């Protein structure tokens, strides 16, 4: 049963990834074309998922948004995890204080200050990379706390003492011995961070910091959900949320066993 579940999840993720990669070929219209005679149109033959408030095809925007969110949110999560692994393995116990400080920083305000200082003529591509890049760099402390705890636990294990006694170098121990133990923790953190980053991008969009219009992302498409009356009248605006949930459930299904062999 578990195997079937994983196969379905893999197929779904492959389909979403293909959708993202082939967006210009499969989207019915460019994501920024405004059909000004059909603003806020309901689903129909011309627009399968209707149009948004200024007449842009919702389906096309969802397909293009998938390309950005499915690639960049996980990429930012990978950056966070890589940084967290590096800092927690190099820093040891000493980084506990640093992690606490980073976790207590009001990142949202720092983002606002940073955005206010950035050049205004930043193009959409730079704006997207900047948003996800900043999230990746700023988000290291959450997984670092878990990694630091796992590494501390690992340091007391017999196999590590044996490896050290055998004179194996630190890097080799890290890559060959420790990484298999940390991999499932890293995967769990990845599965937690990636959707969080998609939602964080949506929140940043509200502050004018996320992916800027007219480029679509799951984050800025989810902003419609803040308007209960719009959701009630046009339930199809929930499609990005549905897709996000499907992707997250699929990622969860692909997660390796959580039992750590420490």
């Amino acid at each position, binding site marked *: 049963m578990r195997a079937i579940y994983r196969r379905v999840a893999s197929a779904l993720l492959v389909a979403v990834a293909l959708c993202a990669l082939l967006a210009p070929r499969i989207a019915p219209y460019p994501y*920024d074309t*405004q059909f*000004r005679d059909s*603003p806020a149109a309901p689903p129909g033959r011309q627009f399968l998922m209707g149009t948004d*408030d*200024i*007449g842009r095809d919702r389906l096309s925007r969802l397909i293009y948004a998938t390309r950005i969110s499915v690639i960049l949110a996980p990429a930012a999560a990978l950056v966070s995890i890589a940084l967290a692994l590096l800092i927690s393995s190099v820093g040891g116990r000493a980084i506990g204080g640093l992690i606490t400080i980073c976790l207590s920083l009001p990142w949202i305000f720092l983002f*606002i200050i940073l*955005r*206010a200082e950035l*050049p*205004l*003529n*930043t*193009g*959409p591509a730079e704006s997207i990379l900047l948003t996800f890049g900043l999230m990746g760099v700023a988000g290291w402390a959450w997984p670092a706390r878990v990694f630091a705890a796992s590494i501390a636990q690992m340091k007391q294990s017999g196999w590590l003492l044996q490896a050290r006694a055998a004179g194996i170098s630190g890097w080799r121990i890290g890559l060959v011995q420790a990484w298999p133990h940390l991999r499932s923790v890293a995967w769990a953190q990845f599965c937690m961070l990636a959707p969080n980053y998609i939602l964080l991008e949506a929140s940043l969009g*509200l*502050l*004018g910091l996320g992916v*800027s*219009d*007219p480029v679509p992302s799951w984050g800025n498409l989810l902003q419609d959900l803040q308007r*209960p*009356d719009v959701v009630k009248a046009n339930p199809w605006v929930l499609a990005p949320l549905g897709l996000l949930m499907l992707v997250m459930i699929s990622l969860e299904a692909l997660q390796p066993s959580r039992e750590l062999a420490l």
Partner: protein
Amino acid sequence: MKIMWNRHFRLFIGVVFISTLCAAGSKELRFAIAGDPRTFDPLHVEESNSETIRYLTAGVLVRVNRLTDQIQPELAERWELLDGGRAITFHLRAGLRFSDGSALTAGDVARTLNRALDPKEGSATGDTFRSGQVNPEVRVVSPREITIRYKEPKAGLDRLFDSLAIAPPAPAKLPASAGAFFVSEYHSGEYLRLARNTYYWKRDAAGKQLPYLDTIRLDIQQNHDIELTRFLRGELQVVNRLDAESFDRVARENPPAARSLGASLDPEFLWFNQAPAKNMPEWKRKWFISPVFRRAVSGAIHRDDIARIVYRGHAHVAAGPISPANRFWFNAALQPLMAEPPGAALKSLATEGFTLRDGVLRDRDGHAVEFSLITNTGNRARERTAALIQDDLRHIGIRVNVVTLDFGSLIERITKTLDYDAGLLGFNNIELDPLEQMNVWLSSGQEHAWWPAEKSPATPWEARIDELLMKQSSESSREVRKKANDEVQRIAVEQAPIIFLVYPDYLCAIAPAVRGAQPAVAPPQVLWNIEWLRLE
């Protein structure tokens, strides 16, 4: 024990019955304001919540009728403009009293005005009464007569007194008032209650003392969606301002409550930064100071689409800096600014050396024409307007980067650092008289959007606007002032330093139980004749 229980039960039923009767009989109007008022001192009002309280409680000498724009007597039963608009004499009604019962005389008017004019007070109300930096002479002739005299004629002198709330001598946390209501309760963050002033002088035709309402409860409610939901549930009776989406919802769910008055006084506009700024290259500034460039941008924007799509048809295409709703001051010769075909804009841009190559507009030196457009984050209508402008300008090869900023950062950029290319915002006009807009159009004005506080006018047309505005500000004839203001509007449209887009309609919701409401486009809109409102 049984007898005691019966007695208590009867007492309880009695209390419930009496309080039900009281509740049914009480006439309390309920609506919401967006936040706590910062002050109850009418001379120090600087934001809209305090302004609403000030208006509802203020006893003023005269009132500008928000529907007719005529001045009508209030505490003053009559007045005379003297020496060609240099002086004004007010004659107060007999037997005037504040809400605490103390007598109101010309001495109170003089004390209030002198306090407003005192530089130590730093009162914004006082600023409007100064002529240049000079205070007028205030002389009490008798307990019911007062004269205010200036050295030069002052435009709209009588209308100024619409904003001067006459204050009682004794300061208090919740001060007495000479208006229809006074503040009787204040629970920070929750609500305020205004009670009817039993000493208020005004009576209706049948001789019944006004106001009709016993109390007004103003709930402090920041979230407009919740405010609207509460209105639709019947918990509030007025929503003084609605956006297009909310208005459509009210029109669907409670059609008689939805009121649209047509174009409001408040324009939406965009402008280019023409001030020398350290982060703006000189070649880019050259585009922005070119009237041909500005007119081409203006001509490429489909304002009718903005009105139809962004405001769901609840907006009017702008013709200039004054709304057509402002019937007297609007220059009727100006036509709504409709879009031109892209070819026409490109043809005029070619005269300045701009060429369209591979879908990109380039200037004489080959620079691709691209600029950022900043607006405030969280304002859905402006974000959508920016998206439409972005698309319109793409058709003439201009790339626009829309950037939304929090309001603080935005104001910092447009008033202090001047580090921006173009902005998209709206004006909130409180008065019909264009004197209020002088700070925008005078080259030395702090709100001179495209180049704040210029040392001297940078162009001959700005010098001409300065000259016309200064002349009309010391002119007492409305007709002469109207002529000067018509020319200012014509120049503003011709030179397009500010590109006016649309005037969103004034939309509000009034429960059918509220009678006597005559909403006007000028603030405070539904509430302007508060003493005449009643509940059925």
